[in-house]
């Protein structure tokens, strides 16, 4: 049914990592064609999870063709030179495996989960999808219509509507302003040529990371990759894009109010945030955890939900991508409570800017971020996902043991400093979706 939006929310709160798992040491192997393998062996269950990450995503969509990366990924399993769309589905389902591709802002991932006994078949299918997609016009038209249907049904979801408006303001002309799925107008314009050229320019071994986790040895993994991916060549009409897209810059603040006949208003407040490579990433993560980063003990939930009963959910997030993503606070409240919830939120931001955080808050936040790390690594799928992000952001193979040290180092002074640097109450963009007559939204101060 319709739970995709919820899944996104869940990803947001997956806080950054930590120790106890210091023994996790991935191996890195670079193949002749430039394909990089990151491997963690785990032999307790007969399962293998693979995330193939292509280091290009919707940020690389051509101008006015938002949605190309997504449509390209969506077509990988819709027919290859060896198998029809139907045959691919039958083969995956018959072995109880899952194999699917999806684009994100910065990258595209193809995820395989398979029983150890079927690993040859799994790699055969993965390789067929990545190396031989047909991009058949009939399939393309069919999938395009499904995507347009999803875009349309997003108009029933106030959070989707609000995010679209918010990103459009906060990112100015940077491609992060567009949803990965694309826009109604842009998806209609995409031609087969756009897809083929995106594929040829980006789906290249030297632009790809394989993160392999589970019941497989290094020898087996390398042999499988050799067997199924050594034919993959770095030929392309143009070299891989040098990624010369300028970083997004702070845009003038703006308030946008969108009318929709609902009982609640959906509120987004925020501005441009930080990139994953920002040296202040760790203090920002700790600060955000205390402010509203997911836990039930955050300041936002304590004050707006527990003490005032205004909301069911309210959280803050820094979407730290390859380039700066958004800092945003998101909440939903009964329309007539909108102004009260907004001003309570701003008060929390001003409070953390003025007084920083207490020693107890800092200690407890670090304890959570460090202590909950093993939970993030429990399954092969979670681990493969995290490992490929470690590879993509070049965080280093020692990441799993170093992370607690980065968190441990954060001080109250750091938090006050990053609050003053990255929270800008005078530059807040505000988007409200809902019954505006009842909400009577006041301009931000």
């Amino acid at each position, binding site marked *: *049914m*319709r*739970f995709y939006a*919820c*899944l996104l*929310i*869940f990803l947001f709160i997956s806080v950054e990592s930590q120790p106890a*798992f210091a023994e996790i040491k991935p191996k890195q192997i670079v193949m002749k064609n430039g394909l990089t393998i990151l491997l963690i062996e785990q032999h*307790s*269950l*007969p*399962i293998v999870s693979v995330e193939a990450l292509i280091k290009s995503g919707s940020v690389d969509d051509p101008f006015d063709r938002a949605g190309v990366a997504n449509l390209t990924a969506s077509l990988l399993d819709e027919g290859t030179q060896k198998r029809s769309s*139907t045959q691919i*589905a*039958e083969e*995956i*389902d*018959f072995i*109880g*495996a899952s194999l699917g591709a999806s684009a994100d802002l910065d990258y595209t991932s193809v995820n395989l*989960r398979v*029983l150890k*006994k079927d690993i040859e078949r799994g790699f055969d299918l993965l390789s067929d999808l990545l190396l031989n997609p047909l991009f058949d016009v009939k399939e393309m038209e*069919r999938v395009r*219509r*499904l995507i347009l*249907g999803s875009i349309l*049904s997003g*108009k*029933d979801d*106030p959070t989707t509507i609000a995010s679209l408006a918010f990103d459009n303001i906060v990112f100015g002309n940077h491609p992060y302003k567009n949803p990965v799925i694309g826009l109604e107008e842009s998806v209609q314009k995409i031609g087969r040529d756009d897809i083929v050229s995106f594929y040829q320019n980006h789906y290249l071994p030297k632009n790809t990371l394989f993160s392999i986790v589970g019941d497989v040895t290094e020898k087996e993994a390398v042999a499988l990759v050799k067997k199924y991916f050594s034919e993959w060549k770095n030929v392309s009409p143009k070299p891989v894009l040098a990624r010369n897209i300028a970083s997004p810059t702070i845009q003038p603040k703006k308030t946008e109010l969108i009318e*929709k*006949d609902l*009982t*609640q208003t959906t509120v987004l407040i925020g501005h441009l945030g930080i990139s994953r490579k920002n040296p202040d990433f760790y203090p920002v993560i700790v600060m955000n955890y205390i402010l509203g980063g997911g*836990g*039930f*003990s955050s300041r936002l939930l304590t004050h707006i*939900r*527990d003490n005032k*009963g*205004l*909301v*069911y*959910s309210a959280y803050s997030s820094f979407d730290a991508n390859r380039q700066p993503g958004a800092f945003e606070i998101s909440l*939903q409240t*009964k329309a007539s409570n909108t102004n009260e919830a907004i001003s309570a939120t701003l008060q929390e931001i001003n409070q953390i800017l003025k007084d920083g955080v207490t020693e107890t808050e800092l200690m*407890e936040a670090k*304890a*959570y971020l460090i*202590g*909950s*790390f*093993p*939970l993030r*690594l*429990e*399954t*092969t*799928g979670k681990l493969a996902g995290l490992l490929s992000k470690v590879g993509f952001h070049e965080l280093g193979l020692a990441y799993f043991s170093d992370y607690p040290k980065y968190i441990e180092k954060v001080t109250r002074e750091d938090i006050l400093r990053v609050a003053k640097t990255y929270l800008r109450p005078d530059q807040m963009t505000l988007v409200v979706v809902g019954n505006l007559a009842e909400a009577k939204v006041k301009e931000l101060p």
Partner: protein
Amino acid sequence: MSNCRSAFLLPICLLLFSIPFVHAESKGGTPPAVSRTVLKNGLSVILVEENKAPVVTFQVWYKVGSRNERIGKTGLSHLLEHMMFKGTSLHGKGEFSRIVAKNGGTENAFTGNDYTAYFENFAANQIDLSLELESDRMQNLLIDPTEFGLEMEVVKEERRSRTDDDPYSSLVETLYATAFLVHPYHNPIIGWMDDINDLSRDDAYQHYKQYYQPNNATVVIAGDFKSETLLPKVVALFEKIPQGVNPNPKMPIEPPQRGERRAIVKREAQLPYIFMGFHTPNYKNPDTYPLSVLAGILSSGKSSRLYKALVYQQQLALDAGGQYEDLTTDPDLFYFYGTPRPGVSLEAVEAALNAEIKRLQADKVTDTELTKVQNQIEASFVFGADSNFARAMQIGRAETVGAGYDYVTHYVENIRKVTADDIQRVAQEYLIEDQKSVGMLIPKPKKEF
């Protein structure tokens, strides 16, 4: 279906409730050591040792949910679930969550028709905290009237965002109220808005006293521990809680359905939606296994019948599926759903769904199809064993609805016994018009301002 204390958990719940609840000895995997002990006060304790990662899940399941509510007081179990975080005689408001978080744990709770459950996930060395905190709130909850009033507002916000402002959930709520006339599956788990408004602090406290008894609960712990050291600790903290009177609520008996029912919801929406349910037996009937395989034939993967027919070949729908609920205390629905593509009518999608049902009744599924679904169910069991949380969920739910963890342990072998004849027979017996309730969401144009 399930309501959670936090929106953050929603995906976990939905994912878990939509995969088959399987668990058995895996080929090649080490069978987990599962043990069940009943304490002197009636508390069931199930320990699942799994030492592959240094983490542990603690869950406590109470046999109470919206099934135990009556019109006028619906939503009580769910609101009580929220109040369980608001303080006991030992730990003040908000302390529970704070203690768990500062020890590196995550926690939450969820309410369903048949259960209310609480959990913590921890690094393995923190399990004692769960024992201390959960044994405390099993007996010492305080419900402060002011806190109750505030939390009622939070729950109303939850209802607004989950149901009132979501056209698809509104339709599903209406359909259940149509398919069940008197059985409490008629009511939404979160409660009707007007009922939530009328709940009182004393209602919640009485509900707590009646249902939160060791003899009405199951503790499931899965992960990295040694049973011989953990069990004595569980006994020390939980066995001293006095056994209560067995809550034995009278359950209204649903009269047999004699003819198709229809429910229409008209509201602002971009696309129409169809949701239809058939009354089917639950785990108590051996037909539960062919019905589960049937659900897989219809909607497990892109090669499944509904996706292939409605989405891929006929291109009538954006999505389509069928789902069977086996682990419920009382018989529930086998439901189908579909979202027509823009420009396609609801009637066309309904006709296509009905044609697929007819096909199942007229012709046997092929051996390949049957083996495929059996393979999928077995594989999903092995994948499910990768997560302590998922494994504990399966066992906790099976125990709470009365199926027992054996149901889970023997699930795959029972699924392997299903034949094509069985599937055709259950399709003919249960997926019949007189047992059907059809819900339709019909979009209304946007309100002009």
